């Protein structure tokens, strides 16, 4: 897969935020590639920079206080960080789209859902009101909303959370973008609806050949949908690999921890039920991220001397599989 040129390539992306008395770096040289038609999962705890990476690609990081410190974001070879604002407006919603965590609040309450989908289309394509409306109905149909001719004239408050997320997906896909960024698209929904939304995303990918960047902390969703996975911790990429390889053979202690934390749905009598493992400690506060050494070291059970002094680079541990951990540096046993 790596012989192909990536559709979207994030190279060494560093983003920092200026606060009242200091500068906080939230992304540290994040690199990742997305290929046409694949699903790339990004996992990590809250505050690890997953959403920041997504917003960074869309150039939606509020500036100020945010600032791109370094790096490139190449969409078919075009650097989005160098692109003019006008070009970015053309790309958003047309080439790269995004769906957000909170379907309850990401739709504008004063417009009908049809209006909002039509708006996306009209921003990018030279369509009349009537045609845009028809396109909205078509999109609602595509995301599995029954009676789309009727729903198209409804306001967001008349729809359930799952329906609203479908509308968001319809909006994001209305111009048939090549990349869809789904930032924890199901966090606010209940489990049955989550499953439906994931099914829908998988279905859409097959039909439209859209590349999906799925940001989540749900390992189940990753196993279900992703082709490749990037694990992020404290604004850094700590492990990357094909989904099966990474889930069955995780290398980085953080990835192992994340996988172990997933509760298993097996009926066991309470006496033999093991205590659900957890990763001790919490994600370090952002202002500590500039310190030398691996940011995971304070929470890690396998710390070696180098962990405290220097951030490891990415070491290959398998086909297309690499991890940023000193345990896997050359010469380490």
């Amino acid at each position: 897969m790596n012989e192909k040129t990536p559709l979207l390539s994030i190279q060494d992306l560093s983003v920092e935020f200026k606060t009242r008395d200091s500068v906080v770096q939230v992304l540290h040289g994040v690199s990742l590639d997305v290929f046409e038609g694949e699903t790339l999962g990004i996992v990590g705890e809250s505050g690890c920079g997953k959403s920041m990476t997504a917003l960074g690609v869309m150039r939606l990081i509020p500036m100020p206080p945010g600032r791109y410190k370094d790096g490139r974001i190449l969409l078919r070879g075009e650097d989005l960080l160098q692109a003019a604002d006008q070009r970015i407006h053309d790309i958003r919603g047309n080439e790269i789209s995004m769906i957000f965590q909170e379907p309850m609040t990401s739709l504008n309450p004063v417009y009908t859902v049809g209006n909002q989908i039509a708006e996306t289309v009209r921003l990018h394509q030279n369509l009349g009101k009537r045609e845009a409306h028809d396109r909205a109905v078509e999109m609602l149909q595509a995301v599995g909303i029954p009676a789309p001719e009727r729903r198209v004239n409804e306001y967001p408050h008349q729809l359930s959370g799952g329906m609203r997320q479908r509308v968001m997906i319809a909006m994001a896909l209305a111009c048939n973008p090549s990349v869809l960024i789904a930032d924890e698209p199901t966090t606010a929904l209940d489990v049955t609806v989550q499953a439906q939304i994931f099914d829908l995303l998988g279905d859409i990918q097959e039909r439209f050949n859209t590349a999906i960047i799925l940001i989540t902390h749900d390992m189940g969703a990753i196993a279900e949908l992703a082709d490749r996975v990037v694990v992020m911790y404290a604004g850094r990429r700590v492990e990357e690999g094909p989904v099966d390889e990474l889930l069955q053979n995780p290398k980085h202690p953080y990835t192992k921890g994340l996988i172990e934390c997933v509760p298993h749905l097996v009926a066991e009598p309470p006496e033999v039920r093991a205590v659900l493992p957890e990763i001790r400690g919490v994600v370090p506060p952002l202002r500590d991220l500039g310190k030398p050494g691996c940011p995971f070291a304070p929470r890690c059970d396998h710390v070696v001397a180098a962990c405290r002094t220097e951030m490891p680079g990415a070491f290959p541990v398998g086909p297309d599989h690499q991890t940023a951990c000193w345990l896997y540096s050359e010469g380490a046993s």
Partner: protein
Amino acid sequence: MSTEATTETFDTEPIVVEHPLVEFVRMFLRNKAGVLGFAMLLFIVLTSIFGPLIYPVDPFEIVGVPVSPPGEDGWLLGTDSLGRDLVAGLIHGSRTTLAVGAAAAACTVIIGLIIGALAGYYGGWVDNVLMRITEFFQVLPNLILAMVLITLFSPTLITIVFSIGIVSWTGIARLTRAEFLSIREREYVMAARSIGAENQRIIWHVILPNALPPLIVTAALNVGVAILFEAGLSFLSLGDPNVMSWGALIGDNREAFFEAWWAVTFPGLAIFATVLSVSLIGDGLNDALNPKLRER
């Protein structure tokens, strides 16, 4: 994670789609005071439109003996200290009052909206500069500034409208800014940006419609303020001398108050009724547009 359910199941309950406008009218009609205010204003508006046709008397013409009491000599509300017909004065004055009130309030809202929206949306130095300008206008004495502007230029209706607009936009600007500061952080604004909407589009098509309810209420109340302002200016003889106005009637007759109480009282009541009707409508709008009061 896998599931058989690929489509959501929906209750068969019929979806009642009520157009927001229909809902708005329904809510407004529930406020009796608001309806009363609307009826009063409607009467005044109809008077201003059709009054001069039904009652074709020139308000400036001296038609009879000065200070003729209401009902005597055939003049319904009597004549003022110059011998002009008071009914004609009130009818023609309503045109000035309503026109100036509405136009000045519109002027106020337009200036306040643009300044407040830009300050609240862009923040940073734009906000700083615009808010300092707003504060500068806030500390100037309104009436004096308006008087200076009207004396500098000629006392025509246009000048009066703009003068009132220029001295009274600060409240709307601050309110708009506050609404924008809060709404610009909502997720749907980010979502709009993510589909490629530009700043101008986000300001006027995404945020503004959501900021409108409190602004509409304030704008309605501003009509009342503008009417009082115009009356005050006319009272001070700074109104347009070519058009009749209620404030001018009061001003022209103030020295004859004890001989011709009616010539001051009726225009005063007319001003009072108009401002009251506008305030009641503002109140009704508040009820109709405030989501917290809905769904009861």
